[in-house]
């Protein structure tokens, strides 16, 4: 059951290597030596109860926080501590838990910002516009391309955020609770979009509270608890682990 994650799943070299990340805020230890790897095209789920350090880990990888210790390597290059926009250009794209968009700009222009600035090389407008259109097709937004984001509902705003993240075909896509607040019939099209993206070689990291979605989408799961990597493996392995049950449901149910 203690499977070595380097061998689990795909044989290709990892695109993202996270090593021994430690973070503390004053006296509080938020992360206490977390490490994992993700391969191209893999879909990895990160779960854990509130306060386990999921969001802190997410922010550190996205460059929104600098870790106290540890290193993050993307495609063989160390990216620890680089600014957010540089990390995005190098290939890590994220969507945030609370969707955040350029609200008075159109859907197309929202995605255009990322198409123009989210890649390492600058591209002409014609090419960028085509990339935007592909991203809008993948996320199912083509009919709403001219609408302002402030006029959209929550699901469509999440789609805009997803489209903005995938428009440059990032090496790694990180989704922070993308599915929270979304009704069930909308889950399927979003999930299909994510599978499409991973099939094209992007490594997807899903941070999620909804266990059903993690179980369905992620062949491999990492469980964080109190800033440590508690266990990892296939959904079947992880959800059978008594420590996982304990930390989610409390001692009495274990």
């Amino acid at each position: 059951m203690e499977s070595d994650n380097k061998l689990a799943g795909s044989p290709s070299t990892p695109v993202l290597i996270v090593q021994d990340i430690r973070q503390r805020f004053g006296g509080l230890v938020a992360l206490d030596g977390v490490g994992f790897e993700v391969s191209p095209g893999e879909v990895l789920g990160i779960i854990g109860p509130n306060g386990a350090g999921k969001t802190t880990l997410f922010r550190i990888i996205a460059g929104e926080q600098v870790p106290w210790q540890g290193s993050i390597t993307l495609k063989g290059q160390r990216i620890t501590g680089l600014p957010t926009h540089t990390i995005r250009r190098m290939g890590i794209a994220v969507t945030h838990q609370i969707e955040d968009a350029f609200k008075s700009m159109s859907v197309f222009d929202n995605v255009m910002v990322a198409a123009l600035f989210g890649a390492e090389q600058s591209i002409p407008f014609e090419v960028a516009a085509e990339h935007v259109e592909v991203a809008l097709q993948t996320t199912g937004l083509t009919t709403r391309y001219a609408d302002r984001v402030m006029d959209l509902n929550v699901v469509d705003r999440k789609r805009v955020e997803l489209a903005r993240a995938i428009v440059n075909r990032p090496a790694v896509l990180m989704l922070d609770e993308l599915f929270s607040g979304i009704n069930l019939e909308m889950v399927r099209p979003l999930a299909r979009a994510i599978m499409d993206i991973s099939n094209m070689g992007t490594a997807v990291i899903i941070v999620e509270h909804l266990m059903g979605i993690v179980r369905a989408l992620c062949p491999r799961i990492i469980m964080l608890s109190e800033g440590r990597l508690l266990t990892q493996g296939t959904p079947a392995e992880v959800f059978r682990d008594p420590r996982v049950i304990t930390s989610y449901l409390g001692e009495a149910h274990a």
Partner: protein
Amino acid sequence: MAAAAKHSDPVTKISQAWMQNRSRKSNLFLAIWGIASVAILVYGLTANPYYIRIGISTLLAMILAVTWDMVSYSGQLSLGHAAFFGTGAYVGALSFTKLNWNLLLSLIPAAIIGIVLALIIGRISIRLQGAYFAIATFAFAEAMRVLVLLASGLTNGPLGVTVLDAPPFPVQASPQLAIFVYFLLLLEAVVLVNVWLRKSRWNFAFRAIGESEVAAATSGVSIRNTRLISFCISAMFVAMAGAIYSHYITYIDPTSVYSVQTSVVAIIYAVFGGVNTLAGPLVGAAMLSPIGEALRVALGPASLLVYGAALLLTIIFIPGGIMGLLDMVTARLSKRAGSKQLGER
């Protein structure tokens, strides 16, 4: 991007429509601005000296308003125009008195020093937001005034500098007409650069940062670099305007060229006309500056009260300024027209 091929077959319907639509607004603006420029030039060539002076202060007001709006467009409220204007004025004046350079030559050091100053203050304060950035730029302008006051070996301190030099001009003309033409040429450069900025990729960075810094950064936009670009371009033009101004007014001292008023009126013009639009700051300055000039004759310093009232009324009743009002009217008209012919959508 090869992997995109699978999806990209039906592409280009939306993207082509978007590409075609992209420069429509700025093209309309450029056409109108072209006509306006000719009208301004004809005005300058035919007006008497008093009206040329009104024209000069209006052109300067337009330059200050558009350059302020450039910074505001990237989400920063600047009160630092006086720093760049005053420094440009001193560079213009001193390069004549110390080096015997004419107006056109002095524009080069004025532009360079404007950019360098903007880089210095930008590096320190560009991360500050909203009111904090405004306070930092305001303090910087005050610090520059005090610095120039103290460096009396170079600047003559509180005694000021006199510039008695007719600006070079290819044909026979009064110095005032020459100044008018140079301010008009500078305004043309400001407007064209502003149009270019809004047609370029930076337009998307400016708007994105103005709406959400977090989303902009996660989209790959460097917030610091984007803001430095608009801040430096703006400062360069303001410093050049200051240099021309020093040759126009012929006598400058620290209090007059590092005046807070320079920073404040730029904001009033832009807000009155409509911030973050191409035409708004131009329209606002063109309407308010001549009125202010007339009021100053009648009321003296109290004329600023009228500006303050205009600003308040604008913010309360037409927050989008004149251009916002225009947009509202055209939207309502086209809505009425649209309800008659539904085929459009």
